[in-house]
């Protein structure tokens, strides 16, 4: 099983228990395993079984670490790996303090049920907001340190020597005076019996002594399997006796099922059952996905589409435009008096921008597998948040929490679709509940995935800047107009902020982890909230994507009026911000900004602070025919304060640019008759290998009181760098996204 297995699996991996006894005591995964299992370890991938019987015969040493007699180190991780490197990074943090041999490290996923039984001892499962490493680095390191201390104590006890004379190194405990040593494996059993020391009281290693943290250790998620296609994702799961279902949800958000005629399809090949899932969706359960899909395509369903069926894209745009001019708005940032500066302006510039709805569109469409009986419910979910999936299972199953559990399975892309939103999990359980005792895998078609998303919110911006007679900037007004994610998803935060959605200001906020990293004279940034019937969600980077374009493109416009080089202008207004200057300068230096580029090559630059990290990107491109862009290179600098795995960070940065540039050039979701128009990748494209430029990443570690995130911050800065370079090449300012709508393409 090429996935991380739950730690509460028992005995044989071939054992499968259906029914009452299963969930509470720890379920065997019981998957059909025609493939070998890779070793999820630091060594290059080989085909070896990851043993399941970790808890009963090999007790843990503190909650975070299990040591096998053969010295294998099993680290517990509860965040979700989705290629971003979380399990490797977190394991590095533990391994550093544990002082173990990295080549012996493996990772296992405690299940949410296990976590409940252990009173949330591993903390939050939520993997989003670029939080995985930065919000757990302290307590996971302590988990490793606790285990190390217990192992050292066990050795000291065994040798009857003072603990101060012993130390741990590379999976051995050694006694300094005598030179005696014992392997972790040989000490594990005794160590596990010792009382667990207080994690808060333990001293952590000095970063200058780190040998694992900060190094590009081999990743623990099986790279080889991903490349060969051998990796098992949730959509690939096979369970004994499993049926497959597919679903059709009301194409208009807010509409409901009026009626459907199961008899029209029940006789079709492979069809087992047609079920209403909830008040807005119907599913067909069959022996295979193909049979289920053929049936649901033929199934007559009548919808109560509701009033939202009348909503058109033009209506939404009109509402946003009205918001740009409306008197009322929520103020996110205000310094000085931008209005007076505007009134006294000798030269004013203005620009309006647009950013569309976007879908996450991971390559693996939404899916989940569930098995329901009257006394237990288990779900196998490709999830960014095991606890959120568990909450959905508890609610949908109607069973007490102790009788529920979730197995986290590899996701074919998360990007924010699979954490906060567990609609697919709830649906899988509701379908499985109508087929008690039978595992049901629910797979959405690509069309369902494209049209039933949780969309990046649509947003417009109007930027205004005023200058004095010396062409010096005197004030800025930034008006955002568009949808709030939190108003729909976390209304409690909006209520607390008196109606304002603070997240709208990511990257240009007043303070905090997404604060603006310029010091402009007289600035006001506000938001006219214009919500729509389209359900919003957290798309990788969230609101930094459009805010980076709005601000960083306009910064270039302001620089031009001021008669300054775009880099110089940025330096001037971040003069008191050394870490912002550092990333800007790193990019500029690598690109040789001070010397002219080759003929026909043009440059652009952009920077932002978000998720606690400072990032900047520079772009070199050429334009032919006025509208065909060839990007020659992108240089990115990122300063997350501390880096756990530099190679992994580089990969994240490059990957974020693929996602961000795809959005810039190719992607939008539009509304017609209340429905999302784009149903597949033909109308929602992606940048290809041939189009993608080489990305050079410069990693800075500026330290500081808190760690910054890596998964998201860089995604936002490539687009404005490209747009700024395009202006240098053509004299045209591009202010609406995607560029394909302006006839501009990436070659």
């Amino acid at each position, binding site marked *: 099983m090429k996935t991380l297995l739950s730690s509460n699996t028992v005995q044989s991996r071939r054992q499968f228990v259906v029914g009452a006894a299963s969930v509470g005591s720890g379920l065997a995964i019981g998957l059909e395993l025609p493939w070998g299992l890779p070793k999820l370890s630091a060594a290059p991938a080989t085909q070896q079984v990851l043993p399941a019987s970790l808890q009963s015969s090999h007790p843990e040493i503190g909650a975070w670490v299990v040591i096998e007699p053969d010295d294998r180190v099993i680290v517990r991780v509860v965040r979700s790996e989705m290629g971003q490197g979380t399990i490797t990074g977190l394991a590095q943090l533990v391994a550093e303090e544990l002082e173990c041999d990295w080549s012996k490290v493996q990772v296992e996923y405690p299940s949410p049920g296990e976590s409940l039984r252990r009173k949330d001892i591993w903390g939050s499962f939520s993997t989003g907001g670029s939080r995985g490493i930065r919000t757990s680095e302290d307590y996971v390191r302590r988990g490793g340190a606790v285990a190390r201390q217990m192992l050292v104590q066990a050795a000291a006890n065994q040798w009857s020597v003072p603990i101060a004379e012993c130390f741990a190194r590379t999976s051995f405990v050694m006694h300094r005076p005598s030179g005696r040593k014992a392997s972790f494996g040989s000490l594990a059993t005794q160590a596990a019996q010792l009382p667990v020391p207080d994690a808060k009281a333990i001293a952590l290693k000095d970063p200058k002594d780190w040998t694992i943290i900060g190094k590009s250790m081999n990743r623990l998620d099986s790279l080889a399997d991903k490349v060969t296609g051998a990796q098992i994702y949730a959509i690939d799961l096979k369970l004994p006796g499993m049926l497959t279902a597919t679903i059709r949800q009301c194409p208009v958000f807010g509409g409901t099922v009026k009626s459907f005629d199961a008899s029209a399809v029940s006789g079709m090949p492979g069809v087992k059952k047609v079920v209403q899932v909830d008040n807005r969706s119907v599913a067909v359960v069959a022996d295979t996905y193909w049979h289920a899909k053929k049936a649901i395509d033929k199934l007559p369903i009548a919808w109560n589409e509701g009033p939202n069926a009348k909503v058109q894209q033009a209506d939404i745009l009109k509402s946003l435009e009205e918001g740009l001019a409306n008197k009322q708005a929520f103020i996110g940032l205000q310094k000085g008096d931008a209005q007076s500066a505007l009134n006294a302006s000798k030269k004013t510039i203005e620009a309006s921008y647009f950013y569309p709805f976007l879908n996450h569109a991971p390559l693996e469409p939404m899916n989940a597998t569930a098995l329901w009986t009257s006394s237990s419910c288990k779900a196998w979910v490709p999830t960014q948040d095991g606890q959120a999936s568990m909450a959905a299972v508890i609610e949908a199953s109607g069973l007490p929490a102790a009788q529920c559990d979730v197995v986290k399975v590899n996701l074919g892309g998360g990007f924010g679709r699979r954490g906060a939103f567990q609609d697919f999990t709830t649906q899988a359980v509701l379908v499985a509940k109508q087929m008690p005792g039978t595992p049901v895998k629910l797979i959405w078609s690509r069309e369902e995935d494209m049209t039933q998303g949780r969309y990046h919110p649509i947003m417009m911006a109007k930027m205004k800047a005023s200058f004095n007679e010396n062409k010096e900037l005197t004030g800025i007004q930034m008006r955002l107009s568009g949808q709030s994610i939190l108003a729909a*998803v976390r209304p409690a935060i909006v209520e607390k902020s008196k109606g304002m959605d603070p997240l709208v200001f990511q990257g240009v906020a007043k303070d905090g982890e997404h604060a603006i990293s310029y010091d402009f004279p007289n600035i006001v940034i506000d938001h006219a909230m214009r919500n729509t019937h389209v359900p919003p969600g957290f798309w990788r980077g969230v609101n930094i994507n459009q805010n980076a374009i709005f601000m960083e493109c306009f910064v270039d416009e302001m620089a031009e009026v001021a008669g300054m080089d775009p880099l110089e202008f940025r330096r001037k207004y971040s003069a008191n911000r050394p870490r912002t200057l550092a990333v800007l300068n790193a990019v500029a230096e690598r690109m040789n900004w001070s010397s002219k580029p080759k003929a026909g090559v043009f440059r652009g630059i952009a920077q932002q602070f978000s998720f606690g990290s400072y990032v900047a990107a520079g772009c070199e491109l050429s334009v032919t025919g006025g509208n065909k862009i060839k990007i020659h290179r992108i240089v990115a600098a990122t300063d997350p304060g501390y880096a756990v795995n530099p190679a992994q960070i580089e990969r994240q940065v490059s990957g974020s640019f693929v996602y961000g540039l795809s959005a810039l050039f190719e992607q939008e979701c539009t509304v017609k008759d209340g429905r999302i128009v784009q149903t597949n990748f033909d109308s929602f494209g992606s940048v290809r290998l041939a189009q993608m430029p080489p990305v050079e990443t410069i990693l800075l570690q500026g330290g500081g009181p808190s760690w910054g995130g890596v998964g998201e911050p860089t995604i936002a800065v490539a687009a404005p760098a490209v747009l700024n370079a395009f202006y240098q090449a053509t004299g045209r300012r591009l202010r609406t996204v995607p560029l394909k709508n302006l006839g501009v393409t990436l070659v």
Partner: protein
Amino acid sequence: MQRRAFFKNAFAVGGGLSMWGYSGLAALASQAGPGRDIPQAVLSWANGQPLQYGRVHLSLPPLVENGFLVRMSVRVESPMTKSDHVEELRIFSELNPSPFIANFFLGPQLPEARVETRIRLADSQAVWAVARTNTGDFWCSYQQVIVTLAACAG
């Protein structure tokens, strides 16, 4: 003002505990009491009367997605006789904009002091259930609920 519930009959936090008679509970005293500050709204209601931790069995899902609609069931150990019954049972929130959720008026005409309903939670927090008997005693319990979306935003 009493900030921590002192307990005559201490037992660990959480729902789903088995019933017992309410004399001779010393055996359970080894388990820690709540160790959690009592919400001001609870203290105001008790108005100086001691709050005893126990007898109230509160059951909520430990994990909920968004907190909009959370199933809750609460039961108080009581013979519900004329001379010994629960008169009033109040539910409080630690972190909602308003601490008040519901007040239930019971009495000996009911066979059991038990209510099920659905509540709304703004954030991960503890929900408190406090019972007042006809003899003026206050019994309380609480349960922590994690709202998984709260971990998520941003």
